[in-house]
């Protein structure tokens, strides 16, 4: 029983990182209609930049978590403004390939700047709490709390504020929103930057959790984020949150009990969901 609870908790916390990346991915897809391959790179950049900022400005982790993602958001803004904007009217393959080109660029820039090896940030959070008689890291509990907070924040932003309403309008009908005076291109850049910020936040928060920075960390999280986004239904934040929880817990079980096939479980789930609901759990109908 004790190990079960611990596995579930571990799953929840790892699921929250996937949720942070997937939330940005879903937001970008829902509003701009673009599937951003480079979102895992934003996660990775968030981690690396946060690490460097912490080293620069002294060991204030929370300051780094604040600054780091903002830097990445700026990078995201530039990427959309300069490049992505040009391919909206092109066919899907070109959009995907453009974002894929950025994956190559970002991933290799990281290798160039920080080196191809892995970096171990200094351990900072060692506190733990007893759960059913076994120690469980406090930081993980903190992460489990952050996830729903972000979800709540996004829901509030999108459903209850004027900004959110504008975003949702532009998402459902670009031309109409533009006719009503919304400066859609600028809005898109901002939404993209915000999505990048979310992904980078995930990366920044992951630094103490994962304990290791590698140039490959973007790759592994993007696959999971994609699967979560697809299972939840592309464009549905609610779906992404739920799917992240499920995938996180499934992966935790996989890692613990079937180490060779933890990815298989997620894939089987995705295939099964898409067979039942071709657009994902909460995806928009054709």
């Amino acid at each position, binding site marked *: 029983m004790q190990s079960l609870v611990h596995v579930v908790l571990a799953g929840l916390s790892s699921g929250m990182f996937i949720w942070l990346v997937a939330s940005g991915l879903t937001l970008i897809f829902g509003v701009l209609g673009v599937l951003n391959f480079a979102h895992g790179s934003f996660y990775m950049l968030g981690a690396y930049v946060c690490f460097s900022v912490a080293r620069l400005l002294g060991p204030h982790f929370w300051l780094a978590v604040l600054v780091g993602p903002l830097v990445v958001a700026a990078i995201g803004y530039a990427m959309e403004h300069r490049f992505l904007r040009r391919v909206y009217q092109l066919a*899907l*393959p070109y959009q995907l390939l453009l974002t894929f080109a950025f994956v190559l*660029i970002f991933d290799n820039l990281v290798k160039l700047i920080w080196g191809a090896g892995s970096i171990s940030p200094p351990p900072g959070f060692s506190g733990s709490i007893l759960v059913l008689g076994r120690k469980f890291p406090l930081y993980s509990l903190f992460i489990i709390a952050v996830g729903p907070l972000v979800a709540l924040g996004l829901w509030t932003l999108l459903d209850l504020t004027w900004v959110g309403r504008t975003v949702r309008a532009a998402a459902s009908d670009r031309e109409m929103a533009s006719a009503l005076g919304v400066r859609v291109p600028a809005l898109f850049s901002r939404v993209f930057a915000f999505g990048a910020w979310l992904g980078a936040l995930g990366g920044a928060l992951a630094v103490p959790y994962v304990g290791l920075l590698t140039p490959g960390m973007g790759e592994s999280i993007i696959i999971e984020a994609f699967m979560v986004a697809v299972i939840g239904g592309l464009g549905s934040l609610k779906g992404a949150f739920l799917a992240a929880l499920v995938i996180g817990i499934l992966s935790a079980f996989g890692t613990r009990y079937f*180490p060779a096939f933890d990815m*298989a479980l997620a894939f089987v789930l995705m*295939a099964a969901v898409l067979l039942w609901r071709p657009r994902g759990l909460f995806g928009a109908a054709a």
Partner: protein
Amino acid sequence: MTRALRLAAPLLVLAALCAVPLAGERFLTYLAIRVMILGVFASGYNLLLGQTGLLSFGHGAFYAAGAYGLGLFSLHVSAHPLLGLAVAVAAAALLALFVGFLCVRSSEVYFSMLTLAFGMLAFAVIWNAREVTGGDDGLVGVVRGKLSLLGLALPLGKESQLYYFVLALFALAVWVAHRIRSSPFGLVLAGMRENAVRAAFAGVPVRRYRLAVFVVSAAFAGLAGGLEVLLEGSARPFMSHWTHSAEPILVSLLGGLGSLAGPLAGSLLFVALREIVQRFTEHWMLAFGVILLLIIGLAREGVVGTLEQLLARRGAPEA
């Protein structure tokens, strides 16, 4: 392009290819084999992408299926290269039948995501199944058996000998791709790309045909994977990784999606560029990302496509 040129060009290319080993440069011969292998991979892939409009991010899995299929067959059963390649193609096609059945029910983005996930799943399986596949060390020690054909036992040990074997299969593969493209089936595939709904209303069983072209493109990938193992003597999990799956996409885009020559020209350019850039920096992929950006921004039709456009404009100035 006049008809005469159209017929002569492939023959000229074939003649040029036959002449490569005669130059005596082993490394050049090796590179040329790599170009042909990539050309086989990309030609088949372009039947799926350029002709039918389906973007698969997981074709590396079929390449790997072919590679490991031939490798395992060679190590445990027989090192006969043609038999091994037959196993490679069959393994890839069978896998694609199963995967494709699940994937073609979805369209557009969902299709791409499913294939991506499947490719990475295959990667994970290959990585983890150490006893069978050698894990991240890969499958090593695969020898090139003698080619027993019509009573003759042709050795393939030397690069130049393997070269002509690969050339023959490359020519065959490209010929098949050409015939498919210009066949009624090929026209129907183009219709499915242009307007899948209307194709259905024209009486085309869209899902079934998508599966068919998916399997065919996977067969090409399997052949290419098998050929690589014959060349290198080893199979690696990386073959199923999504960055490898991206290669035929990049290559097809580089050369041009709309023609048979596109993926071939793209393969040549890709290998050549890689060799050149790698002389200067180890960050070849970074350069490639930039090149990809440039292509998408400036020359979307690819090299061959842009050339065709220029020639068409020159030929009909009043148009």
